[in-house]
């Protein structure tokens, strides 16, 4: 059963970075003792805050730089603000964020429509590639989704 690459020692670079002292807790970090100085280090000047940034409650202040893309807004923004009241340890942080992402998806469509733009779902989902490289599998996927959707429709109709 046991197989080996026949001449593995001939593979370019074989063994040249081996470090016998890497066992098993060889530090990936170059320990300097600075950990014990905690947050006492020379920080860069803080980036001016030009949009609303939600900050983790596990840190006392903003990091020196941050991304300013897509500030929280709308209903998803309200949910995100709630999430950031809780630490990264809590479900109350992460689950609302995932929920906000889903709400945000619908807000995106509403925003497109309100600007008179009809999103091209086929193009945005790259279905052209599926049709080109996986026509049979893609047809099965579509048929399955349609069948399940129709079955759900029939069940709901019957209940009414």
């Amino acid at each position, binding site marked *: 059963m046991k197989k080996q690459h026949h001449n593995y020692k001939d593979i370019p670079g074989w063994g040249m970075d081996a470090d016998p002292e890497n066992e098993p807790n060889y530090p990936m970090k170059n320990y300097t003792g600075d950990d014990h100085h905690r947050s006492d280090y020379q920080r860069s000047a803080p980036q001016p805050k030009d949009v609303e940034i939600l900050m983790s409650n596990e840190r006392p202040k903003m990091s020196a730089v*941050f991304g300013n893309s897509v500030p929280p807004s709308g209903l998803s923004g309200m949910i995100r603000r709630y999430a950031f009241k809780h630490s990264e340890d809590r479900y109350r942080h992460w689950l609302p964020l995932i929920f906000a992402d889903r709400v945000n998806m619908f807000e995106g469509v509403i925003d497109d429509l309100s600007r008179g733009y009809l999103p091209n779902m086929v193009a945005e989902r790259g279905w052209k*590639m*599926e049709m080109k490289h996986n026509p049979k599998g893609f047809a099965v996927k579509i048929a399955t989704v349609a069948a399940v959707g129709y079955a759900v429709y029939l069940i709901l109709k019957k209940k009414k």
Partner: protein
Amino acid sequence: MDYRGPYRVRTVEKPMPKILHPEDAIIRVTRTCICGSDLHLYHGMVPDTRVGSTFGHEFVGVVEEVGPLVQKLKVGDQVLVPFNIACGKCNFCKQGLFGNCHESNPMATAVGGIFGYSHTAGGYDGGQAEYVRVPYADVGPTVIPPDMDPDDAVLLTDVVPTGYQAAEMGGIKQGDTVVIFGAGPIGIMAARCAWFFGPSRVIIIDHVDYRLEFAKNYAYCEAYNFKDMEDPVVFLKKTTDWYGADVCIDCVGCEAEGNSLQTFSGKVTLMQAGTATALQWAINSVKKGGIVSIVGVYGPPFNLIPIGNVLNKGLTIRANQASVKRLLPRLIEHVQEGRLNPKGLITHRVPLEEVADAYRLFSSKLDNCIKTVLIPSAKA
């Protein structure tokens, strides 16, 4: 590139990025890749991924503008930009942990800033764009050596260092058997880099045949499809004289296949942060006292793994985002000396305008796709 929700992206005109901090630079992107971890964003698996975000943490380009405090870069320099944003001054950066910078992400403490990787990783726009803002420009960006192919350079921003660090964290000894879960670009690179540390066997496990075939040729390794096995853990025990591998490396992360309970709880119901099947197999396939190295990406809440076995087998688990800046000098040398051929992973080159098609191609593993490079059209 503009994210619109799970499985939906498009290209739009966005305002030109600006210098927001004196240590910033603006880079005109010339090559950018879709990473396997971008697919977790694309699939809606990473919390706080906002509609309107631009993804992309693997990119190279030309310096267009620098902030007043930037000293090491000048306009016109061709640079590769590590995926992690690092200040170079905090206690973590000072100790070489550039993937764990404390001054680049106010939105979470468990991860440093990463370009284009959700607000959980700092809310930065990414490099799947014509231009991108790069903070701490004197720290991360590295001038590309004149003799280096930009296709090699763009893979040095993440794939190569992450694959190399995966192997490095495995503490591989001469003669070891190393098992790698996942034959995506990172897994393939980890398999190739594992040889630098002197093992006698490198085994890669996946379920996509064309990727296994590619890995076998590119990384000189054994490659097996777990769908052909009744039980991959038993298979790996058997092939290691019923002992277990010396080192197991998880290069899959939160979207692994192969275990229905993990799939149901992690993908279907999102009761855990994705599926931890590869990590479960790694823990159960490694020998007692062995090392499990993790570079596959998992979400922040929690995952189901057999932690009791970690204790009872006395395992060492090592994991981190790659410290790209720490590893670059050695990796550039490996590329320049011809020992590593990063661009050999690239199978598709796509104009940035066709980003939606490129994501679908990579996500659905169509047309034997291993690695896709996006080419923006902006000219100097």
